[in-house]
């Protein structure tokens, strides 16, 4: 019997063998599904986040179409609420955060001279949980009835989900359940990657890479990761409270039983304001790398920029109530939070002046990444300054819930974060694909996006000051709002065009014959010492670091006047390492991060529909965790 079984060819076993071979040899779809390589995970994060960027962008265009003229009929009020809620949620949790995570993954291990992150499988788990959470969240669209008849089921209470709007009484249906559970799932992804990068940065640096020789981007990854692991638990609890209220009739936000909806606002913004810096600090890190490279000068006042980043992170815990000035906290609380909000502008301002001083006197090479980085500085400065106007409490009373606020946070999150992230995309694209994005198309994209951005959001400042409230699906004629709204809509379509040009650029680049050099921008940090694309093991030989911007110092010495002079036989990244790369032990690919991640959306679905499904999800989760724990991490 046993012999017969052995001889019988088993298609399943054959398929599994094939999968393992593919995974080990880095080929085929299975090698991506089982990968634990930080570079591949980073690419998956980036591609997925850009996919959600298109989705969130389409939602934005729908909003702008609806508001382009008074009394428009593109969306009905119910659809409008769902679309703007999903637009905000998508852009924050499914675009900017994961796009930042993509850069953490791609760049951080290379910059500190490591072969991978501290926990490669946990890293894959983060990605799969993020993907699962994103799909789960968007699946809510289909729960409202027939989606083809415009019956949407998505959450409708805004991305901040203020209670009691989110309670069953005011948000019946499953939309808010999907929202809250989706955010819980995404929170797990963020927490896992936060832990991973803190440990990676603190523990896995190459010899000589002291904390104050770390590139700024690595610093910002570290600071952001700390913010994530401390801010996420607060929103986790707030979301649990909301879910208990919705699913099990608890009273956390039920005024009739003594609950207070204000608790939600406190907890949400106690998370939400650190979250704002979780969104912007990575982009600041990227800009702090791009500017020195294209100015061919070290970052001005490196320690100041580092400490400003740390100071911002600490202070971000003490400003949350500036989102709540109109809730009646009282004069003392309002003044205190107003002052702390003014103070947090100081380290932010320090950074802006350091960036300007980095450019000052540099031999500027004006390429697409630098365009986006300078765009970031300009737009973020406007965003920061309008933020300071919110700290003046009486002024904030007037601005609360108007388009002025909408303009402000798009100014920092789009003009800031998205511009910074695009700078990073253009800057590091060749390192991971081996091809340079087209420079001409890149600059066209920048100018279209820059002009479109300003056309969209500067009119909103005026609209806000004219008194146009946020979160209204339409407005009557004759308020003086018509022209500015039309301009904003035109701007939004210009932004869409610029994104289209980016996609064209990516497609055209994929067909490009010539390959990128290892160091196309004359970079300063360790990733440029590696071939493009980077081999799986990153560093054939782990480097020893002697200075900040070590790679630059390998290439250049300074003459008497402090100008860089090329060093003969400087590191070009193309010498053959004298190491047998086959001897390098890399972590093995694994299915278990994916399986474990799959359990979470199943459990979440079960919580909404049927406890039996929870059991199934829990079983998947347990199989995943035990399989993970018992399999050897590397062969």
């Amino acid at each position: 019997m046993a012999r017969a079984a052995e001889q019988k060819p088993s298609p399943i076993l054959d398929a599994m063998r094939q999968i393992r071979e593919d995974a080990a040899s880095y080929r085929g779809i299975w090698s991506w599904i089982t990968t634990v390589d930080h570079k591949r995970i980073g690419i998956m994060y980036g591609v997925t986040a850009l996919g959600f960027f298109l989705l969130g962008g389409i939602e934005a265009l729908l909003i702008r179409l609806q508001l382009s003229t008074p009394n428009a009929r593109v969306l009905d009020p119910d659809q409008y609420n769902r679309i703007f809620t999903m637009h905000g949620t998508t852009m924050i949790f499914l675009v900017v955060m994961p796009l930042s995570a993509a850069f953490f993954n791609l760049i951080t291990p290379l910059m500190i001279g490591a072969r991978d992150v501290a926990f490669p499988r946990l890293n894959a788990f983060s990605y799969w949980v993020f993907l699962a959470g994103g799909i789960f969240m968007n699946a809510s669209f289909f729960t409202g009835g027939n989606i083809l008849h415009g019956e949407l089921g998505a959450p409708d209470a805004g991305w901040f989900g203020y209670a009691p709007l989110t309670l069953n009484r005011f948000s019946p249906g499953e939309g808010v359940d999907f929202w809250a559970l989706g955010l819980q799932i995404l929170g797990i992804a963020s927490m896992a990657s936060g832990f991973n990068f803190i440990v990676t940065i603190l523990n896995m640096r190459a010899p000589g890479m002291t904390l104050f020789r770390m590139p700024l981007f690595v610093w910002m990854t570290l600071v952001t990761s700390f913010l994530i692991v401390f801010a996420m638990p607060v929103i986790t609890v707030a979301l649990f409270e909301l879910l208990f209220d919705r699913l099990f009739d608890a009273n956390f936000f039920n005024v009739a039983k003594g609950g207070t909806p204000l608790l939600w606002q406190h907890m949400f913004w106690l998370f939400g304001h650190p979250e704002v810096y979780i969104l912007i600090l990575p982009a600041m890190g990227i800009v702090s790398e791009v500017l020195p490279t294209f100015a061919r000068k070290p970052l001005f006042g490196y320690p100041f920029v580092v400490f400003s980043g740390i100071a911002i992170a600490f202070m971000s815990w003490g400003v949350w109530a500036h989102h709540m000035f109109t809730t009646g906290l009282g004069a003392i609380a309002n003044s205190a939070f107003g002052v702390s909000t003014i103070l947090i502008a100081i380290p932010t301002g320090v950074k802006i002046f350091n960036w300007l001083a980095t450019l000052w006197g540099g031999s500027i090479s004006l390429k697409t990444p630098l365009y986006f980085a300078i765009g970031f500085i300009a737009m973020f400065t406007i965003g920061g300054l309008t933020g300071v106007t919110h700290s003046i409490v009486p002024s904030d009373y007037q601005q609360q819930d108007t388009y002025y606020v909408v303009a402000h946070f798009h100014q920092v999150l789009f003009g800031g974060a998205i511009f910074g992230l695009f700078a990073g995309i253009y800057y590091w694209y060749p390192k991971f694909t081996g091809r340079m994005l087209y420079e001409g198309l890149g600059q066209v994209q920048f100018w279209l996006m820059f002009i479109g951005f300003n056309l969209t959001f500067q009119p909103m400042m005026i609209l806000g000051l004219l008194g146009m409230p946020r979160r209204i699906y339409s407005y009557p004629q004759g308020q003086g709002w018509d022209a500015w709204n039309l301009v904003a809509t035109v701007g939004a379509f210009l932004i869409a065009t610029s994104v289209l040009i980016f996609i064209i650029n990516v497609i055209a680049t994929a067909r490009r014959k010539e390959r990128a050099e290892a160091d196309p921008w004359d970079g300063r940090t360790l990733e440029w010492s590696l071939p493009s694309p980077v081999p799986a093991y990153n560093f054939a030989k782990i480097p020893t670091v002697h200075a900040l911007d070590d790679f630059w110092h390998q290439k250049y010495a300074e003459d008497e006047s402090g100008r860089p002079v090329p060093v003969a036989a400087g590191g070009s990244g193309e010498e053959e390492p004298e190491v047998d790369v086959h001897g390098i032990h890399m972590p093995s690919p694994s299915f278990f991060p994916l399986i474990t991640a799959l359990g979470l959306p199943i459990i979440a679905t079960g919580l909404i529909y049927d406890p039996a499904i929870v059991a199934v999800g829990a079983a998947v989760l347990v199989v995943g965790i035990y399989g993970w724990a018992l399999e050897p991490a590397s062969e």
Partner: protein
Amino acid sequence: MQHSPALETNTGVDNRKLLMWLFLASECLFFGSLIGAYLLYRDKNVTGPYPKDLFDIPFTSVSAFILLMSSVTMVLALAAVQRGDQRGLRIWLLTTAFMGILFVSGQAFEFTEFHRQGLSLSTNMFGTTFFVLTGFHGAHVTVGILILLSLFVMAWRGRLTQAESLHVELAGLYWHFVDIVWIVIFTLVYLIQP
């Protein structure tokens, strides 16, 4: 002590241990938020039953004492594996898990008893905050029990040697943390009543 760190780290702390410390640090915010909500709502009940009607302090003191003592047996389990005493390891792991189970059983009894006397999640603010706060703590203890039992099975099969004592150490960190959280909850919820 025999350790075999796979890689040298910059801080000298094993990656996994650093991860556990960070996780516990973030858990402080998690329980901090839950406890904060409990304190905010402790005198906001519109109807009874109130804590003083339901709490059986002697009973809960006993179960709290059992949980506290389980930290001692946890330390003994770690000491056993570190000196290569496999029998001691198995005994103390199982004892710790057993004491955890006693604690959770006590909690289950307390929950059903309170429910019988008319307290549910939706009765009043006390019901809402008490069940959610202590429920999440109980869930943490339950996860800890599962970890301990898994370690016990590993030890039973001879897969938890002196060189792998880190696993026990990590479980211990988690266990002690959950224990400390209970000290805070027990003090703030049961002992100091308004």
